[in-house]
């Protein structure tokens, strides 16, 4: 009996301990996670900060001094390049290891290894679209460059030096939640980050949806509703700028393309602009007489912040700005001589090619009048708790066939055409970090131009300002040389005439230096006017933000840091300015009830500013959105076929010039509707909707309440985000906060004999939810303010803002 009792008790104890160490479903192992010795409690960082520390790291060649300021921003001083990037890797990993791991894992199609089969579809997609293939090619390109080889390898060594001395109790909390351990960091991971950026910024496509439109409505309607240039535009390179180069011969479309377009005038899912802004104004328009540069790149706002602030200094370089956790150098920033920033170009660097296979075995495909062998690439996807999945991807001359049969196509990716090969600049060998390496050390305009040559994808609008009073902007990257509209639709993959015809020479990418108007700017709109000889894309982000920036900068004199700050947080709506008068003109007020009349009055008196307390903004946002959808839904909402919907720009033009257009007629009703009918219906449903969800017309309808905003944790973990807050702006205003996107970094730099930078992150430097530096900058960001950035000239410079000094040595 005694033995039995003892046995039962021991068995229960062992089972209990086992259960506490085991993950069930999505619940972390409770004992491992909750125990205070090694569990999450260990991640609670103390408010008390050590004023100094020192570490021995074998991989270093010399001594490195790191000064941390009050926001835990590291200022790294090294004696050579190797140690500089080694320290950058080490310090970044210390704050952001899990973010680095999960992002590169996602890009590499390896999420299933740690979260199980639920990530299988995403992993498979990333493998099949060639993310690994592209990263391998980029790594090869970087390793061929002796300078970048040192940089990339030193960074990886630094990250690994941190990982190797990390004990399980100090693993970032997300590793504990997901119950896995950090692994060795590889140089290819930095390339994976580039691929992730390329996917975010140029990985969308609407070619299938456009091809479907062409097949359904014919070429005439397609050209009419999807013109190659918007009605309203204010291009990045000022209209009328002369092109001082002799262009290459422009490729001719093959006969089949023309036939497709001419026959009775009878082929991408792309998100309309996430929205980034940058500009530089010349010294002639500033109070100090020296240029000012501003940049706010918009991306998904998350904790940890997408960017990591750092100052990097070694012989030949002293630069401040933001870096991508997992990659060396500063991406957006300034030194004492130059400053630069980026926004996305929206160039069409991704195309689909219809592939004709010889037979069901899919070993051969038709191209250039003969059968060609496919190359097979085996992708092995490890899955937690399951056997690994082995996937064979077919590669053609164009690139990988993403989905070769409908069976594997994903319901979530309706825009990926089945049986088509993907041609994407991000697949090519490249050396993008070299651009940043050179910009970090740049001294003048010539250095800027030289640095841009190395940038491949995703193409960016590089804005520039220097202390010697130059400003410039260049939509830049490896841009395919195409015939007009090449890649607007899916192409025939058997005809070499549809191949890309090389690339636009770098020096002929659109660029402008010191334009007469005294400023340069970009907000993802069209790169140029219609005189630029090359085809970049038929569709860019809408022009409204660019227009507002240009209007304001044009009027600005004696500009200061503060004028730039105010402009970055501007939420005046050019869209409302363009569209609202026409909407109101076409609305018959005589049929409205009291609530509707009161709402109309509110709307008429609205100052067109998406401020948090604006009721007009909520009414206009809802109404214009409903009007847009109601106009197109009957013809373009097809459950079986994915169709691209005409832009807001085209819809505006129809309303203003052709309110009786057939497109306003709802084909599902016997009567013929006009724009007035669509506006009236959508207005009524807007007021009903707002009343139903936000109560009676009043403060409940304020924009900040109708459209709450949250900075969420990267893994969308409840409790790890910012919580909802009220904010201004929408996707078509400069402060483009919308659906989780927004200004992921705001920076303003005043050039001069003493260049000064100002900036703010919507979060903090630390990736640890248990750190005081996880979200310490959010409030300043929400308030629309900037912090003066601490730029140290030497490791020994004193500043009351320095809180900790860390010394690294061999």
């Amino acid at each position, binding site marked *: 009996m*005694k*033995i039995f*009792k*003892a046995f039962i*008790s*021991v068995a*229960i*104890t062992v089972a*209990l*301990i086992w259960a*506490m*160490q085991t993950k069930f479903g999505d619940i972390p192992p*409770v*004992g*491992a996670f*909750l*125990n*205070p*010795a*090694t*569990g*999450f*409690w*260990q*991640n*609670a*960082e*103390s*408010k*008390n900060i050590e004023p100094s520390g020192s570490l021995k790291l074998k991989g270093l060649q010399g001594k490195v001094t790191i000064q941390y300021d009050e926001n835990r921003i590291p200022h790294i001083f090294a004696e050579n390049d190797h140690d500089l990037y080694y320290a950058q890797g080490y310090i970044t990993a210390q704050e952001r290891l899990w973010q680095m791991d999960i992002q590169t894992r996602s890009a590499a199609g390896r999420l299933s290894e740690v979260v199980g089969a639920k990530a299988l579809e995403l992993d498979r997609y990333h493998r099949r679209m060639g993310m690994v293939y592209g990263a391998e090619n980029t790594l090869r390109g970087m390793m061929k460059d002796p300078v970048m080889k040192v940089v990339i390898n030193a960074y990886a060594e630094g990250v690994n030096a941190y990982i190797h001395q990390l004990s*399980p109790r100090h693993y970032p*909390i997300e590793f504990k939640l997901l119950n896995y351990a950090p692994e060795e960091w590889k140089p290819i991971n930095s390339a994976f980050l580039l691929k992730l950026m390329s996917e975010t910024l140029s990985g969308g496509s609407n070619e299938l949806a456009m091809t479907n439109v062409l097949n359904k409505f014919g070429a005439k309607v397609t050209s009419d509703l999807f013109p190659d240039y918007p009605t309203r535009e204010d291009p990045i390179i000022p209209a009328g700028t002369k092109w001082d180069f002799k262009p290459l011969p422009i490729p001719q479309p093959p006969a089949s393309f023309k036939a497709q377009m001419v026959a009775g005038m009878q082929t991408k899912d792309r998100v309309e602009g996430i929205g980034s802004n940058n500009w530089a104004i010349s010294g002639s328009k500033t109070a100090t007489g020296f240029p000012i540069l501003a940049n706010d790149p918009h991306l998904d706002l998350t904790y940890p912040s997408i960017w990591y602030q750092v100052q990097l200094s070694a012989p030949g370089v002293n630069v401040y700005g933001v870096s991508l956790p997992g990659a060396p150098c500063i991406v957006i920033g300034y030194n004492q001589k130059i400053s630069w920033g980026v926004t996305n170009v929206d160039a069409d660097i991704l195309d689909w090619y219809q592939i004709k296979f010889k037979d069901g075995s899919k070993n051969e495909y038709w191209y250039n009048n003969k059968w060609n062998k496919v190359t097979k690439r085996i992708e092995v996807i490890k899955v937690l708790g399951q056997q690994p999945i082995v996937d064979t991807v077919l590669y053609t001359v164009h690139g990988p066939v993403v989905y070769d049969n409908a069976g594997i196509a994903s319901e979530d990716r309706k825009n990926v055409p089945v049986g088509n090969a993907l041609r994407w600049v991000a697949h090519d060998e490249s050396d993008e970090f070299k651009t940043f390496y050179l910009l970090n050390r740049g001294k003048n305009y010539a250095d800027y131009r030289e640095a841009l040559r190395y940038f491949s994808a995703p193409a960016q609008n590089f804005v520039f300002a220097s202390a010697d009073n130059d400003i410039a902007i260049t939509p830049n990257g490896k841009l395919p040389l195409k015939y007009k509209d090449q890649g607007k639709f899916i192409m025939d993959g058997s005809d070499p005439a549809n191949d890309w015809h090389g690339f636009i020479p770098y020096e002929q990418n659109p660029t402008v230096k010191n334009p007469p108007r005294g400023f340069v700017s970009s907000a993802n709109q069209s790169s140029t006017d219609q005189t630029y000889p090359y085809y970049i894309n038929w569709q860019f982000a809408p022009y409204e933000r660019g227009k507002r920036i240009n209007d304001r900068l044009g009027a600005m004199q004696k500009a200061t840091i503060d004028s730039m700050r105010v402009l970055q947080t501007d939420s005046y709506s050019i869209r409302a300015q363009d569209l609202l008068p026409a909407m109101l003109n076409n609305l018959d007020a005589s049929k409205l009830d009291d609530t509707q009349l009161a709402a109309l009055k509110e709307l008429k008196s609205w100052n067109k500013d998406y401020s948090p307390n604006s009721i007009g903004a909520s009414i206009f946002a809802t109404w214009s959105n409903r009007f847009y959808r109601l106009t197109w839904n009957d013809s373009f909402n097809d459950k079986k076929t994915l169709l691209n919907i005409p832009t807001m720009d085209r819809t505006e033009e129809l309303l203003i010039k052709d309110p009786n257009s057939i497109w306003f007629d709802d084909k599902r009703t016997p009567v013929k509707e006009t724009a007035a009918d669509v506006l009236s219906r959508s207005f009524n449903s807007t007021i009903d909707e707002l009343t139903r969800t936000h109560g009676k017309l009043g403060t409940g309808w304020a924009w900040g309440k109708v459209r709450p905003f949250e900075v969420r944790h990267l893994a969308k*973990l*409840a*409790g*790890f985000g910012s919580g909802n807050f009220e904010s201004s702006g929408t996707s078509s205003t400069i402060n483009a906060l919308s659906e989780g996107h927004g200004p992921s970094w705001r920076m303003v730099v005043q050039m001069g004999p003493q260049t000064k930078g100002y900036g703010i992150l919507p979060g903090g430097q630390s990736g640890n*939810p*248990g750190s*005081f530096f996880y979200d310490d900058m959010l409030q300043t960001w929400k308030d629309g303010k900037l912090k003066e950035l601490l730029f140290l000239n030497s490791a020994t410079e004193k500043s009351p803002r320095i809180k900790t000094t860390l010394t690294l040595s061999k």
Partner: protein
Amino acid sequence: MLFPLILFLAFVSGYLLPWWAACILAFAAAFFFGKTSGPSFWSGFAGFGLAWIALALLKSFPNEHILATRVAHLFHLPNWLLLLAVTALIGALAGGMSALSGVLVKRVFEK
């Protein structure tokens, strides 16, 4: 006698060893010093519970409980004190069972 010993072992090992190592220590402590099953269980229970509370609070106070609050919300608990209670309860159960096992195994060898 057993209670302060387990409390001491669970607390000190929290700085040096994985948490389950303290279970073996509690088992051993009860094996050598435990007398009856009830008090042994409760010594392990309270020793572990209190040690875990102390270890957790030593981390959480200088942190002003910001992490504990976030994790509490993650598990849909209204505040960090409840999370601490859950933590203590889980530790206490493991400690109690380990000590109980220790004393019951000891009985097997007793005449």
